[in-house]
Each structure stands twice: as structure tokens, then as C-alpha cells.
């Protein structure tokens, strides 16, 4: 099909004897479009432990965090522990944050039933602070197993995602202030940003 020119009816002043009077006039405009797309994107940077405001924090090696002393040396009660872990994070669409614990608490590496009068697990809380909202994951150390908590975010967001790790003094999977058995205790935290 031949292109149709954008011709406006020529400026006509009607029938005249001599000369022409014409008003300014315009051809019909041509409209073009600029088109692009932005894909969905979430990014999560490397964990950065805020050592300045921490309590009972030991060595930090990459993504591995040591608690300086999990138990009081004389009473073997759990020592209070507190530190924040920051992540540079971006999501350019509505999304959710999920924090999960592999074990559901800090458990002694060699399990089995604890000796009478002793505990072999330490509960803790991990709070996710992101996009002006918070959610708390409890890792009660009741039994070994994964637990998780999700925060839904109804807007794009960018900035610092903070995980606040807290252990209360005397907390254990026995009664409060139960002495802890000796040995290494461990859990793995996972933070995920993604679609709702």
C-alpha cells in the first residue's frame, strides 16, 4: 500500500480576483514512539557485620560469624549476644524477603540427648529490617529442623537490609539458665530476596 502523505488541505482564502490572502497552516503531524523495557531485578550484597555496636561478637571471616563466648565460663549459662549484619540490597519490583534457619536454633554439633542438668541447644531471634518494615524469625531450638520467616514488600526498595541477631542471657533448650554442654554449636542463616 502506498504511504499516505500527511497533507493538510491547502490554505485557501476562497475565490479572489487578484493576489491571495492565506493564513498559516500545518500539515498533520507525524508521531513516533520511543520504546524500552526494564527487567525485574533483585540484588543482595555481601554480608557486613556491624562490629561497633555488637555484644559478645568474636571473629568475622567472610560470611562466617563467631560468637566470642556462648556460655559464661563459671556458670555455663548462655551469654547474651547481639550483633547486626547489613546487606546492600535492591529490588525494583514488589517482592518478598525470606530469612531461614537450617537448624531452628544453635545446636551442639554432636547431638544426641543432652546430659541430665545440661542443655545442648541455644534459641535465638533474627529480625529482618528492610524497606521500613520488620519481621522476626524465632529459632527456638526445640528440635533440629528448618524454620523461616517472610516479609512481603509492596514496592520497589533499595538500601540496607539488616539482620539483627540476638541471644538472650540464659536462653537454652532446657529451662532458663541451664548450663550448656561443651562443644561447637552452629546454625546457618539464609536471606533471600525475590518475587512474592
Amino acid at each position, binding site marked *: 500500500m502506498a504511504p499516505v502523505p500527511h497533507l493538510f488541505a491547502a490554505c485557501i482564502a476562497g475565490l479572489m480576483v487578484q493576489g491571495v490572502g492565506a493564513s498559516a497552516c500545518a500539515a498533520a503531524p507525524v*508521531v513516533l514512539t520511543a520504546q524500552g523495557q526494564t527487567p525485574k*531485578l533483585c540484588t543482595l550484597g555481601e554480608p557486613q557485620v556491624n562490629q561497633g555496636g555488637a555484644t559478645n561478637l568474636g571473629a568475622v571471616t567472610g560470611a562466617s560469624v563467631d560468637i566470642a563466648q556462648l556460655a559464661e565460663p563459671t556458670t555455663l549459662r548462655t551469654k547474651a549476644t547481639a550483633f547486626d549484619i547489613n546487606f546492600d540490597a535492591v529490588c525494583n519490583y514488589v517482592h518478598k524477603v525470606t530469612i531461614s534457619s537450617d537448624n531452628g536454633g544453635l545446636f551442639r554439633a554432636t547431638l544426641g540427648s543432652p546430659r541430665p542438668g545440661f542443655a545442648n541447644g541455644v534459641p535465638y531471634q533474627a529480625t529482618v529490617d528492610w524497606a521500613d518494615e520488620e519481621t522476626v524469625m524465632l529459632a527456638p531450638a526445640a528440635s533440629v529442623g528448618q524454620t523461616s520467616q517472610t516479609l512481603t514488600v509492596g514496592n520497589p526498595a533499595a538500601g540496607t537490609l539488616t539482620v539483627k541477631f540476638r541471644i538472650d542471657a540464659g536462653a537454652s533448650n532446657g529451662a532458663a539458665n541451664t548450663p550448656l554442654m561443651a562443644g561447637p554449636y552452629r546454625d546457618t542463616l539464609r536471606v533471600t530476596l525475590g518475587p512474592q
Partner: protein
Amino acid sequence: MLKLLIGSALIALACPAVALAANPTSATLTINGSVSQACSLGSVTGSSTFAVTTGGSGLIDTATGLLGSNPQTDGNRTITGSWCNTKSTISVAAAPMVAQNFAGTPPSTFSKAVNYTASVSGWAASAATSVTGGDASGAGSSTNVAQTQTSPQAGDITVALSNFATGGGASNRLVADPSYQGSITVTLAVAP
């Protein structure tokens, strides 16, 4: 093709009494015509949609979420077959590329708009331009500079887009959207 418009001609005949004498006689006629001033804007060769991409994925750098490096179009566009039979003015008015599916105002540090410059060349000595001025939501007026061609002109017009930048500031990240769109309107008019 130009159409010649001929105003009505006034034909006056002298109608003297018939001269029976042998002297030659003559009559004078004046024929008048006029051509109206007119412009015609031709047609776009190929697609009338510019595809805008960057060195990243679509419009963004996936490492940062910011506007990607070296944003550019898939080429200039040509409007062929335009003419004006008198002095004319060419102008362009562009609107920012705005995310079509993101409702409302984007959150702080985000933008749903991309600004750019549209240039229209080949008609006047200098290009007519439009620089869009959208904020993070795409609101804001464009700065347009028209150009005049003092002589009758016929030929091709080239439209080019450049200088892409995130609305509201380069530190804003773009919200995800499969369709960011902006319009570029080219106008050709008889100049007063």
C-alpha cells in the same frame, strides 16, 4: 504534487456596438490565479517505533539497577516526501519514556521515567530539538526549539534520539516494567 488553484477569473469584455467600420478592434483580458501556501509532511520509512537499549539488560545495568551504559536507539528514522511551497517552520515535541504498567509515584530513590533529546534535521539549516524534562514520575515540560526554513523546500527529514537520562536524577533506579514509552511529534507548518 502541487495543485494549481485558479481563482475565478473575471473576464470583462467590452461590448461596443458592432462597428461596421473596417478599423480593427481589440479586447483586453486579465486572467488571475493564485497558489495557496501549503505544507505536506510525508511518511516514516520503516518502523515508527525507536527501540531503546543499553549496554546492560534492557534499560538497566543489572549490577546496580541504574540506567545502563550507552543508551541508544536502533537507528534514526526518515520521514520521506515532505514539502512546503513557502517559508515554513519545523518543530518537534517529545515526551519522556514512562513505565506504562507502574501505577502511582515510585518510591524514593526510584524513577519510572527516562528523559532524552529528539532532534529533527534535514529541513532547516539547524535541527529542531525537544529536550524532555520529566521528574521521577515523568511529570514536567519539555524544552522545544523550532527552526525556520525561509525558502520553499522539499525533501527528507531525519529524526534522531539521544542523551538518555533517568528522570529525577541519575542516582535513581528504574522500576521494573516491560514497557517504557515516550512519544515524539514532528510538526511542519507554513511560517507567518
